[in-house]
């Protein structure tokens, strides 16, 4: 078998080979080859039991001091196992079969104790509550320092330094239980940092955080990496973060290392990534599609909105003639809008006249007796067949709103009606017949011994007789491809979420409430879940979802309400909400990349870009404008085919059958001279 760690990136096309050259200013260029890697894996394999398959399969890699490495892959790909191998938890804590050699600072992890390894490699676990050993922040930091016998006269210095490095000096005397998720994550990092490790290994540190807190955590990691020279290895599902912060990205699939390279190198392979089940930043998708269509040079995907703006503006030669192509493109766009993508239900008018809302909030107020996220004067109506998103920061009152909806909380002011029932006079168990909730953590929902029992349980609670309930449950289970007789708890995280989703789908409820339905899922699972939800909306359910992932929201929601400090600060069709910069800033929500990009393009290049929220639409608009302006002269037939397959691939992946899009593999036929246009710094 071939060595899996060899990247297929560098030698594929002449364009790809130039990619590193187009990336001159990325933070720390790889250290010279002579530097000893701080972690080295040599043909490492691991399986958790004799019969179990290999969770990590023949992985070789080396991590050099000072690197910032991101690790991504679908769930079950072996990312956490690989992190455990690097941190010494394998072989010292988890048992199984380990092959190959893992060297930390040149020492085989099998020969030294876990305690000694952790002096070099500090690891932050996925479950932050379990990681904590004390109830006060200061004691949490003290714990490791005391244990490792740091001389007491130095301890104060280490604590202050660690708290300052993470930016939480003000939290020193706080009870950990009273901190927010983002703050806890920082405490966990500070507690490891106080031990002055050379490497930090973090397992999905931002899984439970909103976008702003996620960026803050990554900012902390970057400053540690740059200023303290600490090597960072981070498992992360949010590709936009990885592409912004990492020097190198490792892509895992089925225990193997499939791809590795700089973000630009890795995300140039968006078709491969899609096959594996890994998302790409939307800007990378846009530039890859444009490259495939022959409009821009191939091989260097854009990782940020700025880069993409420069690329497109450059390709269109937008100097002066901004308003030229506005109106014809606009009308053409409107005509083609509906047919061009299949990922979401057709946008609906927000309030069909005469239709009865499935959910109505009228001047709803609620305050917890003990204080905390209160909501004030919420007014909203959600209609059958639409997907309605609630967006905002942690603590803005979104979850409180969903609990008011499914009756777990009752409004202290105003009125909530669900399918015509007032939640104050209807028991929660009755409301459950009309409104089904999918929670963030499926483990709280599952309680039966087999998947079949689990899915049928909700129906039985509604009074459907056991035989009919099983019949309907079987049909849904088959549709989802789940193992009928397996115990839900033996399944993977993603599959457990699918079981929870199946038990919602089987109820055919009028209202579906989703609280962070996609956190902890990989890209493919996320798309499958959301596609199912979109199908149910099309079948007439009203969907209310709370979601931090703005890309998911922009793909699937029709309307959105933006919440901040317990109030709705903006509401309307999705595109309008995302374009309202004042509202988005007030709620500390960053608009999705495509919206941000199209807004900038609309201002700076052509009004034809206004209001675009989809990769395909944006690419389409660029193609049209390019044709009009004669900028992209060689848009050939072949390129168009490639472009069409990118479209196909986009819709294909959302129905859980990824089509290996030919977009990225399409032969590029741009003369090298076109490179000068692509971007500036």
């Amino acid at each position, binding site marked *: 078998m071939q060595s899996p760690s060899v990247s297929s990136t560098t030698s594929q096309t002449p364009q790809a080979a130039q990619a590193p050259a187009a990336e001159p200013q990325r933070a720390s260029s790889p250290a010279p080859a002579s530097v000893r890697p701080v972690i080295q894996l040599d043909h490492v394999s691991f399986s958790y039991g004799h019969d179990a398959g290999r969770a990590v399969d023949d992985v070789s890699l080396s991590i050099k001091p000072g690197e910032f490495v991101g690790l991504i892959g679908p769930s079950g790909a072996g990312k956490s196992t690989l992190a455990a191998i690097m941190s010494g938890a394998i072989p010292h804590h988890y048992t199984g079969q380990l092959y190959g050699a893992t060297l930390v600072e040149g020492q085989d992890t099998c020969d030294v104790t876990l305690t000694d390894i952790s002096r070099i490699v500090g690891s932050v676990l996925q479950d932050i509550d*379990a990681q904590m050993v004390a109830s006060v922040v200061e004691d949490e930091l003290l714990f490791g320092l005391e244990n490792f016998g740091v001389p007491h006269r130095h301890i104060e210095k280490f604590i202050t330094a660690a708290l300052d490095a993470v930016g939480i000096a003000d939290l020193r005397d706080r009870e950990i239980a009273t901190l927010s998720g983002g703050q806890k994550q920082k405490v966990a990092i500070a507690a490891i940092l106080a031990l002055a490790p050379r490497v930090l290994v973090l397992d999905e540190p931002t899984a439970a955080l909103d976008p702003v807190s996620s960026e803050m955590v990554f900012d902390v990691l970057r400053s540690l990496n740059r200023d303290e020279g600490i090597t960072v290895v981070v498992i992360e599902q949010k590709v936009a973060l990885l592409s912004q912060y990492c020097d190198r990205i490792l892509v895992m699939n089925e225990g193997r290392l499939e791809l590795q390279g700089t973000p630009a190198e890795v995300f140039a392979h968006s078709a491969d990534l899609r096959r594996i089940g890994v998302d790409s930043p939307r800007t990378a998708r846009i530039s890859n599609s444009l490259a495939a269509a022959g409009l821009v040079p191939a091989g260097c995907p854009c990782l940020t909105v700025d880069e993409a703006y420069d690329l497109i503006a450059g390709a269109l030669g937008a100097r002066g003639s901004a308003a030229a192509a506005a109106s014809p493109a606009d009308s053409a766009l409107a005509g083609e809008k509906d047919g061009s993508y299949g990922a979401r239900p057709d946008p609906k008018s927000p309030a069909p006249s005469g239709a009865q809302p499935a959910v109505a909030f009228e001047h709803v107020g609620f305050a917890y007796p003990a204080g905390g996220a209160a909501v004030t004067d919420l007014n909203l109506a959600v209609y059958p067949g639409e997907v309605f998103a609630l967006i905002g920061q942690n603590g803005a009152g979104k979850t409180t709103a969903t*609990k008011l909806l499914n009756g777990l909380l009752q409004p202290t002011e105003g009125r909530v009606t669900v399918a015509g029932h007032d939640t104050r006079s209807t028991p929660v168990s009755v409301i459950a017949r009309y409104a089904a909730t999918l929670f963030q953590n499926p483990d709280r929902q599952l309680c039966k011994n087999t998947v079949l029992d689990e899915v049928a349980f909700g129906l039985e609670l509604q009074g459907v007789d056991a035989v009919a309930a099983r019949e309907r449950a079987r049909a849904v289970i088959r549709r989802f491809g789940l193992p009928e007789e397996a115990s839900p708890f033996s399944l993977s995280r993603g599959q457990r979420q699918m079981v929870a989703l199946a038990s919602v789908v089987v109820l055919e409820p009028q209202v579906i409430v989703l609280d962070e339905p996609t956190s902890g899922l990989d890209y493919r699972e996320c798309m499958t879940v959301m596609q199912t939800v979109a199908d149910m909306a099309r079948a007439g359910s009203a969907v209310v979802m709370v979601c931090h992932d703005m890309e998911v929201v922009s793909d699937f929601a029709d309307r959105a309400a933006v919440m901040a400090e317990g109030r709705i600060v903006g509401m309307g069709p999705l595109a309008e909400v995302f374009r309202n910069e004042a509202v988005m800033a007030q709620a500390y929500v960053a608009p999705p990349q495509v919206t941000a990009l199209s807004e900038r393009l609309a201002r700076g290049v052509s009004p034809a870009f206004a209001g675009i929220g989809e990769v395909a639409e944006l690419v389409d608009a660029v193609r049209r404008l390019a044709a009009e302006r004669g900028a992209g002269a060689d848009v050939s037939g072949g390129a168009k085919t490639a472009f069409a397959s990118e479209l196909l691939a986009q819709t294909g992946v959302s129905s859980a059958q990824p089509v290996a899009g030919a977009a990225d593999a399409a032969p590029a036929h741009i003369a090298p001279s076109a490179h000068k246009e692509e971007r500036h710094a």
Partner: protein
Amino acid sequence: MLNVIDYVPGNTLLHRLNPVTKLALAAAIIAATFLAADYPALVGLLAFTLALGVYAGVIRQLVGLLKVLVPVALIMLLLQVAFVRGGTPVAGFVTDEGLVTGGRACLRLLGVALPLVLMLTVTKLTDLANACVEKLHIPYKYAFTFTTALRFVPVFSQEMNAIMEAQTARGVEFDTKNPFKKLRLMLPVCIPLLVTSVAKTDSTALAAEQRGFYLRTRASSYKRYPFVARDIAVFAVCVALIVLGVLL
């Protein structure tokens, strides 16, 4: 839900005592409660505990605990009254001796629970563990187990609430008025709770080991917990309490 064993910050004499002294004080009150047979003594000890609670500013926690304990104490009284058959009948099956023993059991139950909770609310768990390791020479392993168990109580109760909410939203009738039905419905919920707790404790063990848990010795703690004059004074009070308990 208000957590009764959460640390309540403060700077009273009670807060500043050595954790071991506080433990001794609580133990002395409890010992006296068991030794004393007189009603005035039992009530007096209870009042003493509550007075300390008021002084330390944790009376809210103690009252919260009382709300839970008083019904339990009443059930105990009822059982005692039903089972103690000696003495002269007062009304129906109730005898005077039953009432007296029952009442004493009630007061003792409260007298045992309150000092312990009082002590926990004015002491940080880490301080308690470190001081016990330093002064009482308890192996750190056990101290850590104890504090971690206490620390997990609120974590698991949150988890339990979240699970109950999720099940209620599915249509399980947790909102029923019938307590027996509710109990029966709660049993299946224990499965997810158990799964979560096992995973959590395993992670905690790993996290502790990766931060040098096995290197820890008695001398590791950064904070020192010396006995000072006020501790000696409180020890004297402890002895007095026990003597009082024996005499009364």
